[in-house]
């Protein structure tokens, strides 16, 4: 995580809000932002080194890198190359994925397939976003700028059981491109003119979000995906011990738990929103790390990992603790 803590008290006046309004509408008290000039790959490679240490591995043990980010260092090339260099990985295949806040789910699904097909023995799934530099810190963009933090996480996917590992049982993903205009960042891109956008206002070159559409679609589609995933694995929600969601917004997490009839009073919904905000690609991995370090995971515990992001793309993962 970046060291700089940005509290609601610091941010709220710029956005024309109060600290309490941010807390009430998002569950966020503070977030971390990088110092200007920090590349996303720097956060990602730092997270990967920690993950390798934690797993008792070194960089030479990784034979495939998947890097999920929507805020790359550069437009071209993909930032996985920079992570490879900074983390000291061998000359292995390195690829970026851009599935926004579902990057962790896509990364896990792809990594599991690579291991299962014996294309790779150990895959590093790096997840990072530096969003603070893109944000419009004015009241016009308060609904989006109050949410986002910077951060990184990294997961090592391999075929062998290790201490604290979880099994990836199944991942379900879906996309509906009818909503591309409801959440995202339009430039740079070919649709609006390469490089510097010709016909866009400065505001259109910042992240934008139709909050109502995001909440409505996310609430419904995440819950449906979770139900379908559980059903196809012959499980009921009562067999799920932990929900480790993409950390979007505390009200959304509560809505999804309610829709699934998941008993929130057990403390089974993992939320790190209060301290870190929405860190997009990184958030699910960070929440998983938080749960793992809490030492509350028991062997056999099922974990449900719901996510939703720009696209819209959404889905859920199902894991089981091996500990």
């Amino acid at each position, binding site marked *: 995580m970046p060291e700089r803590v940005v509290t609601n008290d610091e941010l709220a006046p710029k956005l024309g809000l109060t600290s309490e309004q941010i807390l009430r509408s998002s569950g966020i008290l503070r977030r971390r932002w990088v110092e200007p000039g920090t590349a996303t790959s720097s956060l990602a490679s730092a997270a990967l080194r920690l993950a390798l240490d934690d797993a008792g591995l070194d960089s030479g043990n990784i034979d495939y890198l998947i890097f999920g980010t929507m805020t790359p260092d550069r437009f071209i090339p993909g930032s996985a190359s920079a992570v490879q260099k900074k983390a000291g990985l061998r000359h292995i295949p390195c690829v970026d994925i851009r599935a926004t806040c579902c990057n962790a789910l896509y990364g896990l699904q792809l990594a599991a397939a690579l291991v299962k097909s014996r294309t790779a023995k150990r895959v590093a799934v790096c997840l990072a976003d530096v969003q603070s530099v893109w944000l419009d810190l004015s009241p016009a963009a308060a609904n989006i700028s109050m949410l986002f933090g910077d951060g990184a996480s990294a997961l090592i996917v391999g075929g062998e059981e290790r201490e604290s590992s979880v099994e990836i049982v199944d991942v379900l993903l879906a996309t*509906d491109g*009818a909503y591309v205009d409801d959440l995202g960042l339009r430039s740079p891109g070919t649709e609006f003119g390469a490089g510097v956008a010709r016909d866009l206002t400065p505001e259109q070159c910042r992240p934008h979000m139709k*909050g*109502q*559409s995001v*909440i*409505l*679609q996310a*609430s*419904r*589609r995440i819950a*449906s995906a979770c139900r379908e995933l559980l059903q196809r694995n012959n499980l009921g929600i009562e067999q799920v011990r932990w929900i480790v969601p993409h950390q979007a917004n505390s*009200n*959304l997490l509560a*809505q999804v738990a*309610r*829709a699934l009839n998941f008993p929130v009073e057990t403390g089974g919904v993992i939320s790190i929103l209060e301290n870190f905000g929405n860190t997009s690609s990184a958030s699910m991995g960070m929440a998983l790390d938080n749960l793992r370090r809490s030492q509350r995971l028991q062997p056999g515990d099922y974990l449900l990992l719901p996510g939703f992001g720009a696209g819209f793309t959404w889905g859920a993962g199902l894991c089981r603790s091996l500990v």
Partner: protein
Amino acid sequence: MLLPKEAHDFLNENARRLGVPALQPTEDLFALGVLDSFALVDFIGVLEQACNIRVPDSDVSVPNFQTLETIEGYLEKHRG
């Protein structure tokens, strides 16, 4: 009235909590605060259960549920 009792009860309970008097057919439920994005998701769940219908995700948008009149119009079309 097409709108089932359970749906009326849901909206009226929200209105009562906000001190909103009896809801009129063309009043904007979102402007009144009777519905917001989260409440709409719950409301649609109530409608689906009470009417035994499935509202497609693509129909889950504010204009379809903005007033009592548009909700009834939507239900009529959906059932039609």
